[in-house]
């Protein structure tokens, strides 16, 4: 029975990774860059939730959308000021800038909110329910359900809506997309905004499950989710989902059955093995051009 419990907890942790990984993968898909500041947006989102709940006593139903909105704006702002001027620049310049933005966010957070960890109040309470004898927290259930809802929402958005299709068109060929009348800048901003609002949601869920919040909170989950995105096939939305969930499961199983200290090493070892066998990731594909 504990196996099932570990599995459920793994899926739940993996759901958080998946939600974060979606941001990495969507941004990579359209801007062809790794937004290393993405992990720190999680932290900003969590702080917005924290202060909205502790200082303003707002209910979670308002707090999470508020954090998502703030982070959406932050993501679009980062894109406009830090990345857009570098659109024609080499990938190394963009990478260094992204790392710079990451430090900027972390250090601004240190300055504003200090380094002492805050105790985050769960947005869904700390209740535990028993499902066929297994103690499962509300947070676990809500996290998994949120992840499913986000996946369904994104699938509909990219598959059925005009804006979502425009996003896919831009991801494939920006010049051709603008020749269709698509505003490429607006589409890229929108992608950053969506990815960053997902990071905020992930931040709220993460801190509800692991209730310490500090300016470094986003780093490790950010790196793990980035790993998950690569694992699943960077640029692929289902890939990010699959990669995230698998990563969470592997991490929890490694912690439970092998070693808590080694769990991260095991996670990354699995990643390396997968990439050796499938360099494009589990669901990644290389587009072939037809002549």
């Amino acid at each position, binding site marked *: 029975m504990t196996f099932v419990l570990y599995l459920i907890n793994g899926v739940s942790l993996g759901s958080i990774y998946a939600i974060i990984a979606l941001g990495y993968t969507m941004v990579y898909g359209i801007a062809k860059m790794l937004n290393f500041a993405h992990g720190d947006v999680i932290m900003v989102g969590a702080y917005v939730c924290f202060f909205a709940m502790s200082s303003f006593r707002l209910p979670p139903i308002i707090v999470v959308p508020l954090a998502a909105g703030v982070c959406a704006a932050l993501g679009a702002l980062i894109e406009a000021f830090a990345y857009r001027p570098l659109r024609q620049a080499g990938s190394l310049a963009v990478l260094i800038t992204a790392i710079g933005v990451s430090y900027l966010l972390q250090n601004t957070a240190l300055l504003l909110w200090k380094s002492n960890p805050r105790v985050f109040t769960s947005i869904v309470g700390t209740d535990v329910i028993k499902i066929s004898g297994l103690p499962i927290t509300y947070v676990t259930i809500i996290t998994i359900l949120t992840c499913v809802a986000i996946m369904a929402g994104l699938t509909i958005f990219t598959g059925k809506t005009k804006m979502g299709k425009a996003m896919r068109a831009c991801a*494939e060929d920006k010049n051709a997309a603008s020749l269709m009348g698509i505003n490429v800048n607006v589409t890229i901003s929108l992608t950053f905004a969506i990815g960053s609002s997902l990071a905020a949601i992930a931040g709220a869920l993460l801190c509800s499950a692991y209730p310490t919040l500090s300016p470094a909170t986003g780093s490790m989950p950010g790196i793990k989710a980035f790993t998950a995105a690569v694992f699943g096939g960077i640029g692929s939305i289902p890939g990010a989902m699959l990669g995230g969930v698998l990563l969470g499961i592997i991490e929890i199983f490694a912690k439970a059955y092998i070693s808590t200290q080694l769990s991260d090493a095991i996670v990354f070892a699995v990643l390396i093995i997968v990439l050796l066998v499938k360099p494009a990731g589990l669901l990644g594909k290389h587009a072939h051009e037809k002549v």
Partner: protein
Amino acid sequence: MPVILKAENINVYYGAIHAVKDVSFHVNEGEIVTLIGANGAGKSTILKTVSGLLGSRGGSISFLGENISSVPPHKIVESGLAQVPEGRAVFLQMTVEENLEMGGFTRPKSGGRTRLERVFTRFPRLKERRCQLAGTLSGGEQQMLAIGRALMSEPRLLMMDEPSMGLAPILVEQIFEIINDLNRSGSTILLVEQNAQMALSIADRGYVLENGEIIKSAPADKLLEDDDVKKAYLGG
């Protein structure tokens, strides 16, 4: 016939490379105008500049009487200028129907069905494959898709960049027939080609481009007879 597109003294640079030098040309409503020239002459650069993807240093481009020199590409499409880009550039990972939908991006949703059916009537092949990914189409089908996609915006002027490139001779004929047919049904066309023979045979007027400069402009039948043009572009 009123002038629909007028480019005056456009100069385009890639860094230090002066790719298009003081080029002026115009297209009248209802015409097929062709821009011929060897590989690297600057043909694609000119079309990209008209579409707003590249900027001209000085000079001006006006379309339907409006100066579009500094209008962003997505706005230019909205004003009625569509381009079939070089190498087709269809969205390989989107279905045929989605590609066409993207072509009509700037148009109101209400007429979408009608526009789609109109393209399908012209290209029944695309209708058969509407749910297939564009990446699974043959080269000729992709070219039809690229043309159909451009038509979805119901353009006043259609610019085509080497639509015959890389196609088997039989398909090349077919593509030129389509272009001719589009023109007869009222489309104004600016056609860029390396296949000068074919292009001049359907065009009203032509411009000859060499190293970024226009060295000749004349009615197409005159260019077909021109000794220099014959020697350089028509294989004797």
